[in-house]
C-alpha cells in the first residue's frame, strides 16, 4: 500500500467530522436551537466577514493576542536572560517567580479592572501579565541550564561575556524559549477572549457572549470555529518556526 501523506488523512478526517455534524443536524438528532448546521455556520462566517462585524471582531482578537504575545515574549526573553545568566538573580529572584507560576492568569482580571477600568489598556495589561510567565520561566530555565562543558569551552576560548550569551547561552536556551513562547501564545489568545467577554469590547469573546444572549447559535458557532482556526493556525506557524530553528536536532 502506498503511504498517504499525513496532512491528507487529517483533511479527510476533519471533513468527515464536518459531515457527521451535518448529518446530525440534517436528521434533527439534536434540536436545531442548540446546534446549528455547518452550512448555516459557514454562511454566517462568510456574510459576517464580508458585510458584518465579524472581520473587525476577528482582527481585534488576533491583534490583542499578537500584541500581548510579542510584548510578553520580548519581556520574558530579556528579563529571563538577565535572571538566568546572573547567578545572584538566579538565586534570589527565580524562586520568587515560581510563586506566580500556579496563579491562574485570569485571576488578575479583577485587579486589573480595579486599576484600569473596563478599557482596552486593561485587556492588554491582563494579557501581558498573564502570558509573560511561560516565556519568562522557560527563558530563565534555558539560560540557567547551560551544559557546564560549554561554559568551559567558552572559558578556554576566552570568549567575551557578550559573545558567550549571543553565541552559546542564547542558542542553548532557544528550544526552551520557543516552548515557552508557544504556551504564551495560547494563554494570550485565551486572555484576549476572556477580557473581551468581560468588558464587552469588540472581539470574538464578546461576539460569543452576545450571540448566546440572542440565541444566535449560528453566530456563536461561527465565533467558536474562528477561534479554533486562530489557535490552530498560530500554533501551526510557531511549530513550523520551531522545526526550522531546531533543524539540528
Amino acid at each position: 500500500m502506498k503511504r498517504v501523506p499525513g496532512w491528507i488523512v487529517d483533511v479527510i478526517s476533519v471533513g468527515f467530522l464536518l459531515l457527521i455534524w451535518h448529518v446530525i443536524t440534517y436528521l434533527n438528532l439534536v434540536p436545531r436551537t442548540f446546534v446549528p448546521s455547518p452550512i448555516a455556520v459557514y454562511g454566517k462566517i462568510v456574510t459576517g466577514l464580508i458585510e458584518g462585524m465579524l472581520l473587525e471582531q476577528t482582527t481585534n482578537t488576533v491583534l490583542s493576542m499578537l500584541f500581548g504575545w510579542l510584548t510578553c515574549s520580548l519581556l520574558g526573553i530579556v528579563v529571563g536572560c538577565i535572571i538566568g545568566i546572573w547567578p545572584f538573580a538566579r538565586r534570589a529572584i527565580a524562586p520568587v517567580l515560581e510563586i506566580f507560576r500556579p496563579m491562574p492568569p485570569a485571576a488578575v482580571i479583577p485587579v486589573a479592572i480595579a486599576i484600569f477600568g473596563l478599557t482596552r489598556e486593561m485587556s492588554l495589561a491582563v494579557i501581558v501579565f498573564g502570558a509573560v510567565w511561560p516565556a519568562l520561566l522557560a527563558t530563565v530555565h534555558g539560560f540557567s541550564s547551560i551544559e557546564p562543558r560549554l561554559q568551559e569551552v567558552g572559558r578556554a576560548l576566552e570568549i567575551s561575556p557578550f559573545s558567550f550569551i549571543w553565541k552559546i547561552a542564547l542558542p542553548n536556551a532557544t528550544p526552551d524559549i520557543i516552548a515557552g513562547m508557544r504556551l504564551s501564545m495560547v494563554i494570550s489568545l485565551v486572555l484576549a477572549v476572556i477580557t473581551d467577554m468581560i468588558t464587552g469590547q469588540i472581539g470574538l469573546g464578546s461576539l460569543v457572549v452576545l450571540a448566546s444572549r440572542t440565541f444566535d447559535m449560528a453566530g456563536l458557532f461561527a465565533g467558536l470555529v474562528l477561534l479554533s482556526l486562530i489557535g490552530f493556525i498560530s500554533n501551526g506557524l510557531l511549530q513550523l518556526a520551531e522545526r526550522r530553528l531546531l533543524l539540528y536536532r
Partner: protein
Amino acid sequence: MPNLAPFVVVAALLLGWQFALSDPTFVSDTLAPPSAVLFALWKIATNGEVFREIAETVISAVLGLALGAGLGVVVGIVSSMAKPIGVAIRGPVEILRPLPAIALVPLMTITFGLGLKMEVYVVAFAVFWPAIILTQQAVRQIEVQLIEVSAALELSAFDRTWKIILPSIVPYLIVMLRFTAAIALLIAVTVELVSNPRGLGREMMLAGEAFDPARMLAYLVVITAIGWCLNWALLSTESLFLRRRTRS
C-alpha cells in the same frame, strides 16, 4: 547553607508594598497594603466562607478533571493501540484542541444553565485534549519488548491494556495529572470570574466590584496558594511513585 535570598526578596517586596501604601491619608479603591490583605484573609478564614468557596471551586475542578482526563486516557490508549483510530482522530484533535475552553461558557450556559454542571463540562473540555496527547506520548514510551512479550503471550486486548499498558504508563499519567490539574483549577476559577455565580472566582470578582481591594487580593492569594498546594501534592505523589519504581 540554605538559600535565604528569595525570602529576603519577598520580604523586601512586601515591606516596600506596605510602606508605599501606609500613608494614613491614602485611601484606594484598587490597592491595599499587605497588612490589610492579611486581615481580610484572617476574616474570610475565621468566618469559614473561604472554605465554602474553596470547596465549590475545587469540587468542579476535580469533577471536570475526572471526567475530562478519564475520557482522555481512554481515547489516548485506544487511539495508540488501534492505529487506524489514532490516524483518524489526529486531525479533529488538532483542530479542536486550540479552541479556548472559556469561549464555550456561553454555549454551555445555554445548554446546561449556570451552575456546577456547566463549569464541570467546560473544565472537562479543557482537560480532555491535553490528556489525550499526554497519554499517547506515555504509551509511546513503553518498551517495545514489553509489547512483544504481550504479543508472544497472546494476551487479549483487554489483558494487554490492563496488565501491560496501564501499569507501565502510570508514572507518566501522574505527570499528566499534575499538568491537567493545574489547567482544571485555572479553568474553574476563570469560568467563575467570567460568569458562573459560585466559587473563588466569583467572590474575587464581587470584591472587585464592591471596591474592596483587600478582600479581592486575599482571594487572589488563596487561589494561588491552592494551585501551589495542588502542584506540590502531585509532585510528591510523582516522586513517591518514581522512588518505588527504582527501588524494586
